[in-house]
């Protein structure tokens, strides 16, 4: 197909047409390659997951302190040790919140961060530019 078109270009006598076609063909090839390599433009599922994680953490930080406080208050009320257990459990609740954040951060490190493809794309662009030069 491409050969036939090149022939017709040669018949018309235009050397420029021939080179132009060749350039177009190589560009097509490059485009196809780049398209094949490129991941999905918007990683919406990953983004939704990340947003869910963020929402989860932000409320969990607050809720765990509150839950710790309520547990401490109830234990105080049961054992009649007015402020001590509540203070202890408030701190424990805060520790729980921090622990949850750290756990989530650890599990997130294993999987690729949302938006990771942005960096690799620019890197690839830089390398192809270097090749051309």
């Amino acid at each position, binding site marked *: 197909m491409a050969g036939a078109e090149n022939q017709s270009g040669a018949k018309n006598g235009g050397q420029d047409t021939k080179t132009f076609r060749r350039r177009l063909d190589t560009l097509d090839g490059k485009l196809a390659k780049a398209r094949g390599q490129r991941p999905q433009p918007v990683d919406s599922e990953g983004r939704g997951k990340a947003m869910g994680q963020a929402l*989860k953490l932000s409320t*969990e930080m607050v*809720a*765990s302190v509150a839950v710790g406080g309520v547990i401490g208050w109830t234990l105080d009320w049961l054992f009649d040790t007015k402020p001590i257990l509540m203070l202890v459990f408030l701190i*424990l609740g805060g520790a729980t919140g921090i622990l949850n954040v750290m756990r989530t951060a650890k599990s997130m490190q294993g999987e690729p961060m949302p938006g990771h493809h942005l960096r690799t794309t620019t890197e690839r662009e830089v390398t192809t530019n270097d090749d051309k030069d």
Partner: protein
Amino acid sequence: MIGAAYAAEGADHGGGHGDGGMPDPMHQFEIQRIVPLELFGFDASFTNSALFMVIGAVLLTVFIVFAMRKAEMVPNRTQSVAEISYQFVANMVRDNVGTDGMKYFPFIFTLFMFVLTMNMLGMMPYSFTVTSHIIVTLALALFVFVGVTLIGFWKHGIGFLKFFVPSGVPFVLLPLLVVIEVISYLTRPVSLSVRLFANMMAGHTMLKVFGSFVVALGLIGGWAALAFMVAFTGLEILVAFLQAYVFAILTCIYLNDALHMH
């Protein structure tokens, strides 16, 4: 347009006006008894909240049944929406719980669709947002919490208690970490319910406050507030979807913990 409707709604309610003639932004959350009823000393009246739950459940059921009444190989628009929502939740369950979690798919699908419908129904002018009441979200979250805990004990027996004992921890720190794990577990229903309720209530209050700004600033300055409201309504629709999604995905994660214990 929605913004204007909200503004009109805020201005319309006779009982919602404060001292300065401004509509009360919290008036929209008031529970009104439609059919007063008392059962065994409890107030079990049919309220506007219950009415909107019924409307939502009926709408959802009618929609799904109508969409799938004659399932075709090449789906039409309504069938596509029903299939997309099915697939969305099915993928969520499969990715987060695994194939053995598909037993619980009907529950999670119902939960997701119910919360989504309630949130979206709340976005309609003149409607009532059921999920802006913590008692509703807490009931949903506690059902999930108790159910998941029961599944955990049913699946692993008394060994489910090992869930609270982290592995690879020095013996001295163990009592402290068990307490922290228990607090972390008990935090689940609280954070699950507070997240949904707080997001819905804050968003709707914001909408109402800016709606009253539109009225208060009048023809000259009201346009800026109106433009903000239009944009904010879009954000609220996103939040309505996202919160339903987060609720369902966290249910999946909790279910996964109960079935597979980390």
